[in-house]
């Protein structure tokens, strides 16, 4: 197995070269995977046998091994899925869901999805967390449904995680969740919003606590300009600054300090000030202290 993964690494390296990718990046990624694989140990045949044993202790042991070796264990994802497809004990169910999450195969999402609606709370929650890692359309659909669950933990997991699944189609549901005080939805909204939705989100500043809003803007303000333009970000900053409260100013200072250093980029090509420069001025207007950051 180790031998085969080394081949893959080399192949990936070759592919990187062929695609004119920076060798350093391609190599670094391959190297990371390689080191992970070197740390992993898995007797796949034995694990497969144990997964199919029908004995709880052996199945659990095999799942433990897979959890320790998620990269090497990927080919066994279908065997783990088979356990859930046929149904199994609670203990195995919880472990199997966790392992499928660790293996991160999108194909597993379809098998995991029904478990988000299991009558056992821990099973539902473990399944929802697993879907965040397996991703794919089946995961998005199941987690979108989970926003409507009676289980607040499941709702929270879904609301917080859908942003990472790039599921922009769930934006209306996320806003609805926020209306229903599922504050974790702010995180996903911050990760997914288009400029118009970002400003709609900022309207919530009138009724939600600043901490909830900043859990979203923390993502929104650091997204690339290709997703959220500086004009939108500046509008977001101005709305927070307009609160003119100490916590709001402190938050903007923290944002300022986390923005990349600009040096000569303080002025853009068009002569306008950069976002960071604008932010600095706003903070100063609000009496905030930027310290000696730059």
């Amino acid at each position, binding site marked *: 197995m180790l031998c085969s993964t080394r081949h893959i690494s080399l192949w990936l390296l070759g592919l990187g070269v062929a695609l004119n990718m920076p060798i350093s990046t391609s190599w670094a990624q391959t190297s990371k995977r390689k080191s992970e694989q070197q740390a992993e140990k898995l007797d796949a045949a034995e694990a497969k046998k144990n997964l199919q044993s029908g004995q709880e202790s052996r199945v659990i042991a095999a799942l433990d091994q897979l959890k320790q070796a998620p990269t090497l264990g990927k080919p066994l994802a279908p065997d783990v899925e088979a356990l859930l497809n*046929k*149904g*199994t004990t*609670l203990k195995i169910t919880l472990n199997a869901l966790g392992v499928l999450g660790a293996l991160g195969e999108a194909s597993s999402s379809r098998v995991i999805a029904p478990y988000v*609606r299991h*009558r056992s709370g821990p099973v539902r929650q473990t399944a929802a967390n697993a879907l965040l890692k397996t991703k794919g359309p089946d995961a998005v659909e199941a987690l979108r449904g989970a926003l*409507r*669950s009676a289980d607040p933990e499941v709702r929270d997991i879904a609301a917080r995680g859908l942003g990472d699944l790039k599921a922009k189609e769930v934006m209306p549901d996320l806003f609805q969740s926020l209306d229903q005080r599922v504050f974790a939805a702010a995180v996903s909204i911050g990760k997914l919003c288009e400029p118009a939705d970002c400003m709609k989100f900022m309207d919530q500043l009138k009724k939600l606590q600043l901490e909830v809003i900043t859990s979203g803007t923390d993502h929104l303000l650091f997204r690339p300009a290709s997703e959220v333009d500086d004009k939108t970000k500046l509008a977001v900053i101005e709305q927070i600054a307009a609160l003119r409260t100490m916590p709001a100013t402190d938050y903007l200072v923290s944002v300022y300090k986390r923005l990349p250093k600009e040096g000569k980029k303080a002025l853009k090509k068009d002569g306008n000030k950069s976002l960071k420069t604008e932010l600095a001025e706003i903070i100063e207007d609000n009496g905030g202290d930027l310290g000696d950051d730059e």
Partner: protein
Amino acid sequence: MKRLLSTCLALGALAGCAGQQNGFDQAFTKRWQSDSGDSATRLYERLKGTQAPAAAQVAVGVTSGGLVGKPLAEGAGWSYAGRIDTVPQISGGVVAFTSGAQIVALDAREGTLLWKVDAGKRQLRGVGDDGSVTALSLGDAKGTLPSQFVIVKRDGSVPHRYEMRAPLGVPAVYGGVAFVPWDNQYVTAIDTTTGEEVARILLRHQVSHAQTIGGDLYFGQMGLTRFDEKIGAAQRQAANFLALPKKQVPGDPEWYKDGTAVYTPSDSATTKIHLWARPAASGEGLGVAANTYVAGYFSVVFGLDAKDGSLKWTRALGGDIVGGAAAADGFALCDATGKVWGVGSGGQAPAPLANLGKPLTACVVQADTLGTSGEAEDSVAEQIQAVLDTHRPSLATAYSFLVEELPNIQDPLVTKILIDLIEHPRTVPSLAKRAGVLLAKQRTGVEYMLAALERHYDFLSGNRPPPVGPLAVALAAIGDRNAAPLLAKHLNDPATATKDVPLVASALAELASSSETDELKTFFALYRATADEAPLVEAVVKVAQTLIRVGGPSGQEMVEFAATDPLTHPTVRSKLTETIYRKPAKPAPKAESAGKATSSL
């Protein structure tokens, strides 16, 4: 007839009056020789041509500062400022009440003061008036002082005031004769001019009220005996007598409360829980006007059939009903907001009759006709729905009563009413549970059942789960296969109550087809080894049986695997084994198919 009553010509002579009763105590003594109704018959013959004066059609309410009154038809309202210690009573054109140390009488139509008389440290129990003379029955709230019977002329003079130990009820005056119920079984008739007893009527039912209604005179409490040509036969229980059906209604209201008691306006049990019925000629006997009587329970009124007590209609008013009256064609009901409503005997929607303009603690109404006719525009099911939709915790008993009436109503809407009631967050659990039992027995309103099953719990929209269990039972009994896909989805919905899951599984055993295989498989997979409660175990086994029936080879294989898998819940596994062995043999007796069946075990 010997003179029995002493006479007090002046109010100031009260103290002496009480000491000059002569034979009065004998008038109210039980040492009385029955005349077999002869005196009563003679009195009826004497009075049968009497035309009782038209009663004032009026509502009088008790406010925080006194009284307000208003005629039910045309006429200006009036008010009286002062202390009101007892629920006012209306008779003819007089409204009387206790105010401190006095009994006060007002003109019921105009509110003008007619007279005030000394209350003798007592309070008003009842009043009777024939347009020229008023009879009062007085007592103290604790019942420690002797009763007083007082005759008052229009000018306020008191020709007769007597004390007696016997508890006196509410009197009536009819043709110059005062009829005084006492000791719960007698009515003594006293000539208001001479003060002599002219007749005594022995009744075989509880009697503490005498009242003129629609020109006729009645005696009773639990039921009414009419003063007519048969009155002489009252002690043989052969008089014209009317009783309401023994129907259990919320608050156990009474038609007439104990007439020997004193009622204060603040006693909500007195004012807000009541029956109203109007006696009327029926063939040769006595019946209830329009065959309808009503029960008031706080803000809800129930129209009931006078023959069997069944619910005919129901209405909810904007405020608690604090008084009312039965008219010939309907009911006048006074609510705590000061509005007086007319509800026809057919249950027509309440129509405003008068507005007293102030919040009321109690109200008395006198009405002969309201001018209502026809039938209600909405069905009784719709009326019940409207009442249940008020969702007031204080009306829980009324809601229970109405829910129990629902199965008697042949209307598909009943199904929707039950579903809505169960789903509503403000329905008390015991009522929702009872509604569920009744819903399971419904066999109509399938469209409402299916529509309910389309809904699932939804945190975002606020949808609550439908009553899946009762719906499953009902739909299985009806045999509607359109329910199968909807039920299958609820089978896998964690918002479905655990106790309902086996009911859904059982319904699917009847209704499912191969279209439901995926949902059945999902459920089976999720719970065949994790079912930790008896209802889930039961459901898993039931689903296994259904899978064998509709799931094709893959469904059967799934069940067979589970039956042998040591990880399957032990109870499930043993029952699955039984299920598979019980599987009906295939009809074809071919060796090959028999072999297959055996190998699948």
